[in-house]
């Protein structure tokens, strides 16, 4: 008899809890936003950093009263840095958790995998850091329910070329490119077209494979040429070694890079001494003097006891950007939210002031950071 009563109690309590979750999802005073990020796996650092930024932003918004009196609730899942897992989670967030929008994933490949689900269910998905050119638009046109708040690889390549022409008055560039990544290829193409359109010439284009460590031969061969800037589209692992070996060979022209340079490892690999006259474009810099950035850095340090990085800043902006659109949407459904996102103009974020263009990309300033003795020293803004 006793045994039965225990089971009875268990069943009852389960029913009660099930009832609870039912009431939450239909609660009129809560707006649910899905968070689908890489919290473990290969690129876990991107996902974790983004989510830290998102959580800080939502906390601030809820403390300030939410949207029209409604609090925001995050529904957070880990996609394990796997594109198919990310797709499953987006489906689950949209169909079971009934979120109004899904934030993430962080990488272009995983984000793109979730877009068909978004279009099918008419619920927007927004990424803070998917930079590949074809994320929101391809040959078939704009992907209706996909948005992002970061610049694209080619926007970035253009900005770096513009910076070289205007701020450094360079005319002759050498490109040393990571030939094993689409990211680097996109950057190199955009850089070349803008640099040449602006009157510059590409003196030489060399390539390497990710994982290479010896660049002396290539550097010796370009040393005999006449050039005034080097552009390295690639990641910090090899870029750090190229900079170190270039400086050791006495090549002291400015070296340019993109957001692939953004890691403390760059300074470890190249050595602080070599990192002078080195510039790279990025989404954000903590040494940026603007007040929006200063407030963010202060709030972030108070919550997490560390300096925010670019993914933290992008996550923070992403959450605020979406909340801004929700507050302007006519109704709380995917279609109205999509229209509100498309209408975003001059949204002021930590990573710049952004407006959404017809391809669901954002138009915004790109920050170029100057390194001095291995440290971020000064920032420049490049307008498209």
């Amino acid at each position, binding site marked *: 008899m006793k045994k039965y009563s225990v089971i009875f109690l268990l069943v009852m309590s389960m029913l009660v809890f099930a009832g609870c979750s039912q009431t939450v999802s239909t609660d009129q005073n809560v707006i649910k936003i899905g968070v689908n990020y890489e919290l473990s796996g290969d690129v876990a650092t991107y996902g974790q950093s983004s989510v830290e930024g998102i959580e800080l932003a939502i906390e601030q918004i809820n403390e300030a009263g939410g949207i029209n009196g409604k609090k925001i609730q995050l529904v957070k899942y880990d996609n394990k840095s796997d594109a198919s897992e990310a797709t499953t989670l987006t489906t689950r967030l949209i169909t079971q958790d009934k979120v109004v929008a899904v934030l993430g994933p962080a990488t272009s490949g995983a984000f793109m995998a979730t877009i068909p689900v978004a279009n099918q269910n008419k619920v927007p998905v927004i990424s803070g850091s998917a930079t590949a050119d074809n994320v929101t638009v391809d040959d078939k046109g704009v992907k209706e329910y996909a948005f992002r708040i970061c610049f694209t690889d080619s926007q970035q390549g253009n900005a770096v070329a513009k910076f070289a022409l205007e701020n450094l008055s360079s005319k002759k560039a050498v490109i040393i490119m990571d030939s094993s990544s689409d990211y680097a290829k996109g950057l190199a193409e955009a850089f070349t077209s803008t640099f040449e359109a602006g009157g510059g010439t590409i003196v030489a284009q060399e390539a390497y494979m990710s994982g290479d*460590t010896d660049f*002396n031969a290539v550097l010796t061969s370009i*040393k005999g040429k006449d050039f005034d800037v080097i552009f390295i589209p690639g990641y910090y692992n090899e870029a750090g070694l190229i900079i170190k070996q270039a400086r050791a060979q006495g090549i002291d022209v400015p070296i340019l890079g993109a957001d692939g340079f953004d890691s403390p490892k760059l300074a470890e690999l190249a050595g602080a001494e070599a990192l002078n006259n080195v510039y790279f474009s990025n989404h954000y810099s903590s040494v940026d003097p603007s007040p929006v950035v200063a407030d963010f850095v202060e709030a972030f340090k108070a919550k997490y006891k560390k300096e925010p990085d670019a993914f933290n800043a992008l996550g923070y902006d992403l959450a605020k950007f979406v909340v801004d659109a929700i507050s302007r949407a006519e109704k709380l459904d995917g279609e109205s939210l999509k229209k509100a996102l498309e209408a975003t103009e001059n949204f002021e974020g930590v990573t710049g002031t952004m407006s959404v263009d017809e391809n669901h990309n954002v138009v915004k300033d790109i920050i170029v950071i100057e390194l001095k003795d291995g440290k971020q020293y000064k920032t420049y803004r490049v307008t498209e």
Partner: protein
Amino acid sequence: MEQLLQQIVNGISLGSIYALIALGYTMVYGIIKLINFAHCDVYMIGAYVGYVCMAKLGLGFFPSLLASMLVCTLLGVVIEKIAYKPLRNATRITALITAIGVSLFLEYTTMFFAGADVRTYPPMTGFMAKTFKMGDVVISAQQILIAVITVILMVLLQLIVKKTRIGKAMRAVSLDKDAAELMGIDVDSTISFTFALGSALAGAAGILVGVYYNSINPLMGVLPGLKAFVAAVFGGIGIIPGAMLGGYLIGIIEVFVAGFGYSMYRDAVVFAILILILILRPAGLLGKNTGEKV
């Protein structure tokens, strides 16, 4: 002209590393006819031991060099005892597959403990950070160090092989294992000693690469290992001076291919050389073409 000299300097630095690794391949092949694919991972372990000594324990370069040679010596002997000795009379393919297994084991064990991320040596100071200029040719203290240490180790190796009793035993075992055993030579300990020597050289190569390129990771041994293997075959596998010659030549060829603007074909050229050598001169540059007795 300056550019040519500079490329030769670059090539010698790179070639020294290949030569040091190639010696281990060639000695082991010479004595038990096994291509020890785990050898390139002993080199990687050497780099990690150097990293621990210099970055974590704060030791200087020379104590760290000795420490990593010592650890690699032990590792080489242990690998031989555990993985290869039980297979002494098995077919050669069995030992080869075991070698690949040991190689993967070392790589992924290191990755488990140290992470897959690139690690960096501490910044060099004093003499090690200096660069010397001769006209337009720039030579760094590290490049000089690599070249000098390599030459010293090779001379030492030659002395051991040619002038000592154990060296004589090594040559005897490599010539004819059974006959050597009949003459009272302890074959097992001679083989262990060969692994010890080869591994010590690989350990030295590991720490030199760590200091020179300042970037190590658990899979760093794979490509240099393959190229060192090509170098050993190029010079004539089983022949010690051949491995040195092959190492330097491969290093210099690689640098020149990259220097002439074909950096993407660098690795392809190295492996094309392997294929050509195997077709045209299977015994290698210094090897004698001997017909196999039936």
